[in-house]
């Protein structure tokens, strides 16, 4: 029972177990301390957003969670096991979808890469790819190459590729940072729906405070030089969330003010 069912309002039914645990994690890169003694518990099924001024180590923290970096000191654990290399059940969505997709493979081919690598039976691949592409709203684009798709579609495709990993945790690095406002809001709602359906744990890095509040069960803010936690806010806004009413909720505005003040203070 380490994957508790989720109520509509986002609270786990059972006392949640910790899925991703940072214990006194320090990372030095090129003689500089990027992250300093970061401790953080992410509960199973939780949607955690990380915000912070640029250069505060948000992306680095995410890469540590993904196993793409190894801590200089301290430990990152996933389901109680030390995270020494990337895991197949932890998927990462990169911001630069244009570089993360394989340009020589079609949409279907890009999703297929995951299925080929984890030994998914070849006979059922096409059906599985269809399901995944339908899930992210790309059912009629299986034969298109990434270069023939819009930015929003490419990011949807990258998400489909990550879902193909059937991840227990989804790590997203400013996934909508390069998209226009309308596309962005649409994708926010789609991600919320996908995550609610899969019950995956999410760490979502963004520099957009409103996005963090809108999506998250919890928002942490990092302070720069070196990166450490400066603020840790639970978000009690009701779910399912709505682009209009949630954003007009007085609670939403209060949280936005609090995070805004935090960012301003951290940059001062």
């Amino acid at each position, binding site marked *: 029972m380490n994957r508790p069912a989720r109520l509509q309002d986002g609270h786990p039914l059972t006392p949640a177990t910790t899925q991703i645990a940072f214990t006194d994690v320090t990372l030095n890169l090129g003689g500089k301390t990027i992250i300093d003694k970061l401790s953080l518990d992410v509960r199973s099924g939780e949607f955690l957003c990380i915000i912070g001024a640029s250069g505060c180590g948000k992306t680095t923290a995410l890469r540590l969670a*993904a196993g*793409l970096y190894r801590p200089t000191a301290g430990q990152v654990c996933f389901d109680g096991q030390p995270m020494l*290399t*990337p*895991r*197949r059940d932890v*998927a*990462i969505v*990169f911001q*630069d979808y*244009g*570089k*993360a997709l*394989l*340009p*020589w*493979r079609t949409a279907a081919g890009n999703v297929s*890469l*995951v299925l*080929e*690598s984890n030994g998914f039976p070849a006979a059922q691949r096409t059906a599985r790819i269809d399901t995944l592409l339908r899930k992210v709203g790309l059912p009629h684009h299986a034969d298109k*190459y*990434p*270069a*023939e798709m819009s930015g929003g579609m490419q990011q949807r495709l990258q998400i489909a590729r990550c879902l193909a*990993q059937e991840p227990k945790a989804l790590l997203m690095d400013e996934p909508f940072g390069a998209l226009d406002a309308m596309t962005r809001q649409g994708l926010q709602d789609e991600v919320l729906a996908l995550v609610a359906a899969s019950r995956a744990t999410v760490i979502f890095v963004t520099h957009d405070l409103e996005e963090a509040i809108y999506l998250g069960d919890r928002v942490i803010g990092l302070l720069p030089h070196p990166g450490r936690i400066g603020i840790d806010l639970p978000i009690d806004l009701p779910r399912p969330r709505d682009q209009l009413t949630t954003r007009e909720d007085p609670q939403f505005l209060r949280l936005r003010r609090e995070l805004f003040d935090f960012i301003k203070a951290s940059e001062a």
Partner: protein
Amino acid sequence: MIPPRAKAALLPIACVLGLELWSRATHLQSDALAPPSAVAAAMVEAVSDGSILVATRDTLASAFAGLVAGGLIGLAFGIALGLLTALDRLLEVTIETLRPIPSVALLPIALIALGFGYRMEITIVAFACLWPILILSRAAVKGIEPRLMEVARALRLSSRDRVTKIIIPAALPRIFLAFRLAVGVALIVAVTVEIAINPIGLGAGIMTAQQALRPDLMLAYLVWIGLVGYALNSVMMLAQRHLFGRAALVGEPA
């Protein structure tokens, strides 16, 4: 009004006509030059008696065998050196010392070791083709988008999948470009070896014509080699367009 391809043919046609008129006007008598009409007649003769076709077959066979052998070795090393920085540094001096040696300078050794014939010629061509392919495929692998390598890590692809599904496809447009260059090198080196020493192929054909005091035939061979080279490049261009059509919309290096 005139299609661009026809326009490109105008200059060569004008030159040929000019040469023809000039050689007739001056009643050309030479061991080195011949009127274009005589060259054309010699070419028709060499094609119809099959001698130039046999020579072409010999030259192309050696050139291709050398290209494939040198190309595969170059590709393997290029990919390995592109991926393993430590190995690259270890071999740097060795490679940079071997690479400037003109392939033709190996002729004396190759001749003693392998004698006349295909084997010697193929070896020299392979040596010449190895370097451009090694250098360019190493650069192609080093130039692969780092994010793609990270995706490969994040998905925990096996080393084999990493090479066949990420590295080779990502580097392929540039590797193909390297092969296109190497095709030219292979033809040049093969003909050079034949002219210098090896009694087969188009190069030997030129030498025989020269010694027979047949400038028309000699020039016919030269023109023929030019046509063969043009045809080869056209085939490669066509293959490139066919292979990297739609998928090459992004990241096309050339």
